[in-house]
């Protein structure tokens, strides 16, 4: 197998990329290549132009902001997310999610921005970004604009990025230092895309009452799903496995994807289990207790 013929560009500045995006038709941006290269090799995509982002300046960084949040460049490798002390301290959910992403050989190349732009609904980083209320920054000819994940995801593998825009960074708002987090997934093999996954963050007060909770389901709907009613229903309640099990039953009624290998009904059966386990993992880590990080 080999990719179809295309013209290759490797600019070094973001405005050059935007210029190419504005002037060329049928162009693909090449980030880490861990999804685009298989698609090229198998000729699922036939771009006339491939613009490589690997030499573009200012896209590979993890920046801890003064408010406790994180801003991460689009070309930051998944390996960097795995080993970044700032990520581990401020958004440990990202680190836990990234350990499920492919394998070390693909994480060495794969990027945060590539994963979000590819927008596979089963992708762990997309699911984590949804749970964390991430905000993406897109650069176009008119400058930067920011979009919440909920606005960024238009549909199945369809980001809201305009044809003349590129994803440049992702901001993860601050969470209380004592928040708990959990990411669990069901996949046939370690490193595979999830058949179903769930990401949760949780904040409890001294009495164990839930003051803040976020839950996202991955691999189930056409985009990762937040469960706003379920989240609201948990606020103020004393966290327990029985409470989560009860409320997570609602996850069985979400609209689920059906494909050749996994039926929608199976995904709906997995969803409440994944949700409960993610919330339980988050509960066990909330309150600033000693965190265990399974590899």
């Amino acid at each position, binding site marked *: 197998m080999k990719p179809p013929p*295309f*013209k*290759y560009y490797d600019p070094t500045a973001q405005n050059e990329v935007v210029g*190419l995006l504005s002037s060329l038709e049928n162009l693909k941006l*090449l980030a880490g290549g861990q999804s685009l290269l298989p698609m090229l090799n198998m000729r699922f995509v036939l771009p006339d132009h491939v613009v490589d982002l690997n030499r573009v300046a200012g896209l590979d960084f993890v920046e801890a902001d003064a408010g406790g949040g994180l801003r991460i460049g689009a070309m930051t490798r998944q390996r960097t997310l795995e080993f970044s002390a700032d990520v581990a301290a401020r958004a440990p959910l990202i680190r836990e999610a990234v350990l499920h992403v492919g394998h070390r050989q*693909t994480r*060495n190349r794969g990027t945060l921005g590539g994963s979000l732009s590819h927008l596979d609904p089963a992708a762990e980083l997309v699911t984590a970004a949804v749970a964390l209320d991430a905000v993406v920054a897109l650069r176009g000819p008119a400058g930067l604009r920011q979009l919440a994940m909920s606005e960024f995801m238009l549909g199945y593998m369809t980001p809201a990025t305009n044809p003349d825009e590129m994803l440049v960074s992702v901001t993860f708002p601050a969470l209380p230092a004592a928040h708990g987090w959990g990411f669990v997934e069901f996949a046939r093999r370690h490193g595979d895309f999830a058949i179903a996954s769930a990401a949760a963050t949780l904040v409890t007060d001294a009495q164990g009452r839930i003051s803040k909770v976020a839950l996202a389901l991955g691999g189930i709907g056409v985009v990762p799903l937040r469960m706003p009613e379920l989240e609201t229903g948990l606020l103020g309640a004393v966290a327990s496995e029985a409470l989560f099990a009860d409320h997570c039953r609602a996850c069985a009624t979400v609209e689920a994807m059906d494909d050749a290998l996994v039926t929608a009904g199976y995904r709906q059966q997995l969803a409440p289990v994944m949700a409960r386990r993610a919330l339980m993992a988050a509960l066990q880590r909330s309150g600033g207790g000693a965190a265990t990080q399974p590899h």
Partner: protein
Amino acid sequence: MTGASRRAIKLQVNGKPHAAEVDVRLTLADCLRQEFKLTGTHLGCEHGVCGACTVLLDGQSVRACLMLAVQADGRAVATVEGLAGADGKLNILQQAFKDHHGLQCGFCTPGILMTLTECFADKPDLTEQDIRVALSGNICRCTGYQGIVDAAMDALRKMRSLL
């Protein structure tokens, strides 16, 4: 900026300079095999799943089928050909694979050796669990993996004893 269909590239492979003029669509794996005649890097699935084509790019393991050769311009690549000594003597890891039945048909072996080479360089205090997680990115259909894990652990012990 204009796009290219072909490009001249220069890179280090196993410490030696290599140059070629290649189609921009050529993968690094095909470049190693076809342009540089380094056929130790094997191609299994050609879409990033099997791990047979794993090489090191500036010391990090990557799928050579999921990179374009032009992306390796100016970089240092290490392949399985660089592991044995100049006299052909197997290195500690390779010898351990021979001793512990870490291979049968040998097709996946180059990728596995390169993955483990990165792991050992990264973190010398690996556990068996770390080895198994690292090997999850390499598919072997002969050994059942136990021989590979045994070989990796033995090589690790021998390397530590040399420190």
